């Protein structure tokens, strides 16, 4: 027992051992994440119904209004600075939630687009390419938008710029998804099953 304690104590605090355990921790984290991603990829299904519901829950006009530079300028000119910062923080937070949800919807859209790309119907496949590409762009843009909106939440006194590309990408993605639905109405139409 005594021998065990005397062997362990200096070893446990040695930088060599600490560094080794840090590396083991990093490796275990990586392993855990890999297993999680693998399990998730097996249970995940492309759910067009869910994507439609997500898209329906997002009000693009409201989002456009929240990030409107003219609106912000009006508020800045007509409100006391403290009140303006409070309002701006609330607006940025609401817009951030919109961007976050749009990003999540884009991920589902991308999966739908890629599934459609594998369709034997050339029109559906071509439309799938458009859906996926728009969705990838939208997803990446939402990351940028989220970061900027988060900055606005934290530092409301900074003057913000408009966020038109995100809105454009969202509209483009939604439009292409609509086109994909229309292509599905042919004789060999592909639409989601209820069980999906």
């Amino acid at each position, binding site marked *: 027992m005594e021998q065990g304690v005397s062997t362990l104590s200096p070893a446990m605090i040695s*930088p*060599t*051992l600490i*560094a*080794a355990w840090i*590396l*083991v921790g*990093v*490796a*275990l984290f*990586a*392993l855990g*994440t*890999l297993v999680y*991603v*693998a399990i*998730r*990829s097996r249970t995940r*299904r*492309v*759910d*067009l119904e869910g994507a*439609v519901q997500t898209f*329906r829950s997002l*009000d693009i006009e409201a989002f456009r209004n929240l990030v409107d530079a003219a609106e912000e300028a009006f508020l800045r000119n007509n409100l006391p600075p403290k009140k303006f910062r409070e309002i701006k923080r609330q607006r940025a937070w609401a817009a951030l939630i919109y961007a976050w949800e749009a990003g999540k919807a*884009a*991920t*589902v859209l*991308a*999966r*739908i687009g*890629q*599934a*459609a*790309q*594998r*369709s034997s119907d050339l029109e559906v496949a071509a439309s799938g*390419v458009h859906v*996926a*590409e728009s*969705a*990838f*762009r939208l*997803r*990446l843009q939402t990351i940028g938008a989220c970061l900027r909106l988060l900055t606005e939440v934290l530092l409301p006194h900074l003057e913000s710029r408009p966020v038109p590309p995100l809105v454009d990408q969202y509209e483009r993605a*939604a*439009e292409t*998804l*609509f086109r994909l*639905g*229309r292509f*599905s*109405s042919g004789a*060999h*139409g*592909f*639409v*989601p*099953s209820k069980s*999906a």
Partner: protein
Amino acid sequence: MNWHKLLLFFLWIAPHVLLGVLAVVLCKRRLYRELPCFFAYVLYEIAQFIVLFTLYVVPNATGKHYTYAYGATLLFSIVLRFGVIDEVSKDLFRESPFLKVSARRLLQFVTGLLIAIGVLLAAYAPGDSSAKWYAGVFVVNRGAAIVQSGLLLSLLLFSSFLGLSWRRPAFGIALGLGVLTSADLAMFALRAAFTSEAALRFLDLLMTATYLVCVSIWIGYLLAPELEPASFTVVPPDEVETWNREFQHFLQQ
């Protein structure tokens, strides 16, 4: 022969027999055309095993011979693993011209960052600091394991985040290699810290067992059929119209 040696032989030989099966599967399904680097890696691992196993069992070969051969073959194995990672990343972005540019640029940034971390760790992390060349090889392997597991993790997380669909073989290869490099990182770190005979023997067993798991993942994913887009089925046109109206209503609201 004691149980440890028996288990070690089993865990050493079994994955390489399975790698032989994997090579046959790659040939039969003509996947070596799409995954040439992975195919080369599989063949190389089999050849490496034959050389090392021969050196282990031949009485004339010394421990020094084995160490030299192990270190030299390990270096080329590291290089081939980078090739395999490049191959699976190209496969992942194959269908998207947009991602081919933007995602690869992002991956290059991640690679640069990981290389910097790997170099720093190689310089400051624990290990045999002697001038012996094979000690250097182990340090390089640990740094490479950081870069490789980080890259594979980034690929898997990036694809999950963007909603990118993997083809089953590429996903299996990335997953298996990710498990292998992560385990490599942990084992080489522990080897540097625990140098007792018993600890090294246990780590050897653990490493070979991980390799068996990794090869099993590769075989499992390569043999499994590609998932069909099950969410798409043929339905009557009026139902499609209902969906169309739903989309239209959503877009006009």
